[in-house]
């Protein structure tokens, strides 16, 4: 079972790679505002995260995701249900 701290750490790793470590990534980092990701990049991030955690992440969670923490919580939820 995936625990929140592990999800958060791996997510930060993934985002740091995606943004070429230009910005420090933490729990409260805003995906669109701070990292300047566009909607397509965020959807592509989901593809990576799905494979990393071997879970299905519906694109429809995105309207509820603003920060890294929001995404980590969604993943925790999905992993628990899955």
């Amino acid at each position, binding site marked *: 079972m995936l625990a929140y701290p592990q999800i958060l750490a791996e997510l930060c790793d993934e985002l740091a790679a995606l943004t070429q470590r230009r910005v420090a990534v933490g729990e409260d980092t805003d995906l669109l505002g701070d990292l300047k990701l566009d909607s397509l990049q965020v959807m592509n991030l989901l593809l990576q995260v799905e494979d990393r955690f071997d879970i299905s992440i519906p694109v429809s969670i995105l309207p509820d995701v603003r920060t890294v923490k929001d995404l980590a919580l969604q993943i925790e939820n999905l992993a628990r249900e*899955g």
Partner: protein
Amino acid sequence: MGLFDKFDGLAAARRELQALGIDPFGVEIERIVSPTEGIIRGRPTILAGTNNYLGLTFNAECIAAAHRALDAEGTGTTGSRMANGSYASHRRLEEELAAFYGKRDAIVFSTGYQANLGMLAGLTGPNDVVLLDADCHASIYDGCRLAGAEVIRFRHNNAADLDRRMRRLGPRAADALILVEGIYSMLGDRAPLADIVAVKREHGGYLLVDEAHSLGVLGERGRGLVEETGVLADADFIVGTFSKSLGGTGGFCVSDLPALDLARYASRPYIFTASPAPATIASTRAALAILAAGRELRARLRANFERLHAALTAMGYTLGAPPGPVIAVVQGDRSEALQFWNRLLQRGVYVNLMLPPATPDGVSLIRCSVSAAHSPAQIDAVCAAFADLRAAAGVSTAGRGAAA
């Protein structure tokens, strides 16, 4: 935050475009002369960005059929088919589309966009899973949103990636709807349909293929990639548009499944919109008959796109896909693409400018669409404009062959 604050970014982007003297996303064709020629900014321009693949917009039979319907049935239907009734011609076109594909039934929608919107909203809901290719058209994404379906994307043209995602779904995979396109509109590449079908056969689920850009173009009878790949029977739903190879406006879905007819009653984009005008239906029916018998048109289209593709390759341009009716030239950054597009227009060639995030992987594209109606001289002129710009950029095209 004010109502219009969100337009600040758009306004800045548009100012940059307008600095060119012409907005690529607001081009006015002052006069349309033929399927492949128009007057833009007072000068004759070759239209190589219209999706008019078979050049049927000026076909005499289609125009005569539209005239007859206009005279006999009037300008519009003034209502939706469900509330205000279908005209006989709506149903005849549905029967003809079903017969063309050898499928049980068809639904006609008022636009191609609405065909995807209507099918997704009609077929799926919040408890259903839709697996879509990451590069699918906006109408497919919007349809999923309207339906409230659970959307899982898979990597573009990657059947192994689809397989992995279906495996994760477990028993839910058997009822999932898989969505791919015959030809993807941005890069012009085709779905690996045989591989996609193999994944579907293993996990179950239903397959919807959007043939918007491949109808009339691929397959012996023009039935698209499903025909060319020999998987017509495996495609549970085939969606297409009237606004490209058929030269009209509207869209459709064909299927063998009885659920298709019931989907009408669940599809808001079908229910709450006016049905296509009689003249549109009449020209589309005439065009469909021409398309089905159009081997010679397809051969001409193929000769045209193969020639343009080979010439651009020889000049050293990076193209998005092997030869097809959509030829996308990959550009550097956004402003380079913008300048390139403008210079083509100045040389009398109109193509499409495609910028991120509408494009995959953040690339900027100069997108050409080739028509069977382009004359050899027009293809030569398009090639000459591209060669001219290559020369202007200081790249020698001599002796590069097809290696690039």
